[in-house]
């Protein structure tokens, strides 16, 4: 797994993808920080964090589009799948590399917190809660993206499809509000990425939200393993 993780992580930076992701992420985060904290003269970072969800929906597909698509297209997956490693290790190694690049992006919010700290005292607990929320949300999105990437050998299809799925996941609470049947609406609400993530940005530290994102990550990684497994059998 470490071999796959290392190769994958390095390849983000031998290709432009890693740089593009980080640059756009830093720009967008910086823009929202300037707009919602500095301009408003507030120490609150909540708005920055809630805006970053939209940035993720656009950027995570770029980060994950090639994970399996490219390997399939170039037939390099043959090398991974015939090596003495389990499918789980392959999938997890790739996920972890994408996650680490993403985490490098998220760390910029710590810089914002320090900037705020230089002027006044930020609510550190809230800041760390927000960062944790952002990391968990990104982790779930990355795992969805990795899964979609395993479905196609076309990177563009992979990116567009991931984007569409993430938008739908984002819209779950909106969908819930137009469904008249309470039971079904309830299901959508409880699966809503937006509601659960906003929980973090409001400063509520709910274990069920943490478990939700961890479970989504695990579930989609598991689905990815199944897709790879199924492909061998078809």
């Amino acid at each position, binding site marked *: 797994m470490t071999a796959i993780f290392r*190769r994958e992580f390095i390849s983000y930076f031998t290709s432009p993808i890693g740089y593009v992701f980080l640059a756009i992420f830093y720009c967008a985060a910086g823009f929202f920080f300037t707009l919602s904290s500095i301009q408003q003269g507030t120490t609150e970072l909540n708005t920055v964090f809630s805006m970053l969800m939209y940035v993720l929906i656009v950027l995570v597909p770029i980060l994950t589009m090639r994970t399996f698509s490219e390997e399939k297209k*170039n037939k390099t997956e*043959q*090398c*991974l*799948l*015939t*090596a*003495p490693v389990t499918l789980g290790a392959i999938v997890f190694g790739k996920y972890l590399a994408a996650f680490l690049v993403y985490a490098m992006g998220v760390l910029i919010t710590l810089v914002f917190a320090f900037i705020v700290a230089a002027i006044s005292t930020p609510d550190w607990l809230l800041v760390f809660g927000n960062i944790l929320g952002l990391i968990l949300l990104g982790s779930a999105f990355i795992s969805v993206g990795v899964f979609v990437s395993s479905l196609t050998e076309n990177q563009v299809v992979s990116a567009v499809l991931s984007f569409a799925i993430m938008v739908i996941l984002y819209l779950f609470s909106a969908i819930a509000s137009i469904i008249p049947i309470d039971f079904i609406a309830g299901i959508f609400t409880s699966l809503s990425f937006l509601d659960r993530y906003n929980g973090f940005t409001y400063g509520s530290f709910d274990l069920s939200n943490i478990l939700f994102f961890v479970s989504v990550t695990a579930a989609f990684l598991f689905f990815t393993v199944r897709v790879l497994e199924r492909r061998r059998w078809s």
Partner: protein
Amino acid sequence: MIEVRNLSKHFGDKKAVDGISFKANDGEILGFLGPNGAGKSTTMNILTGYISSTAGEAVIDGNDILKNPVKAKASIGYLPEQPPLYMDMTVKEYLNFIYDLKKCTMPRNTHIADICRLVKIEDVYKRVIKNLSKGYKQRVGLAQALVGNPNVLILDEPTVGLDPSQIIEIRTLIKKLGRNHTVILSSHILSEVQAVCDKIVVINQGKIVADDTAEHLSSSLSGEHKLSVKIDGPAKEVMELIETIQGVKSVTLVAERESYSEFTIESEEDADIRRELFSRMAGRNWYIIELKTSELSLEDIFLRLTMGEKIKLKGGKE
């Protein structure tokens, strides 16, 4: 050691591999011969665990590839049809990655250096794979298979894309490797398989049509009972005379030129009419300008092995 029993793979309705069985012992080079689409690559992909079989089993060094995949894969080095190279890595980075991927325990630098020397890629060691020529890419692919010194080597058309001198080099290398590895190599070139392999399995449309040692197979398939001759003499009379030789089944006049006529002679399977032909022609003062056993192309072999004309392979199966 590789043991394959009743292996089948169906893609929908298509039977890509249909109940094949064979065995390759330690220190043996097994040639897998067949036309394109015969099921060679599919079989190799099953053996290496890249795809799974529909039925049957493949056992590598005592480990079933489906039941015990990680252990079985650890003893395989695989060079697929298209070498699985990461184009944006250098040869050095790539081989080190493979070394880590296979969880090798040998001293890293000497092991990789040995392999590079063996397949002659030292001079491109620090170059990006994307920029290498096809021959070099193929050799990097072979190097990749050799990392970790696995017991079993599975090579899918290893000489494709190489120039003639490289082909000879690689064949010599495979022969050398065959002394202490089990090697399965696929090809659609008969002479290549004959030159390198101890044992040949001929496969067509997913089925094994012949499984024998290289010598047996080549002697039974060499077409010694089909001769092509050029004789300087009156075509009609020459033909009549040849027909009287014992063992001759048929004679056909292929071409009549000013200075010679060309014939194809088919004889009984166990008859060798070459000496008799010579003395008869000499007796009449007609000159044999050329005499050769007609080479069977792979297509001919498949026709012979599959289209009813079942030849008996000495000591082997049909």
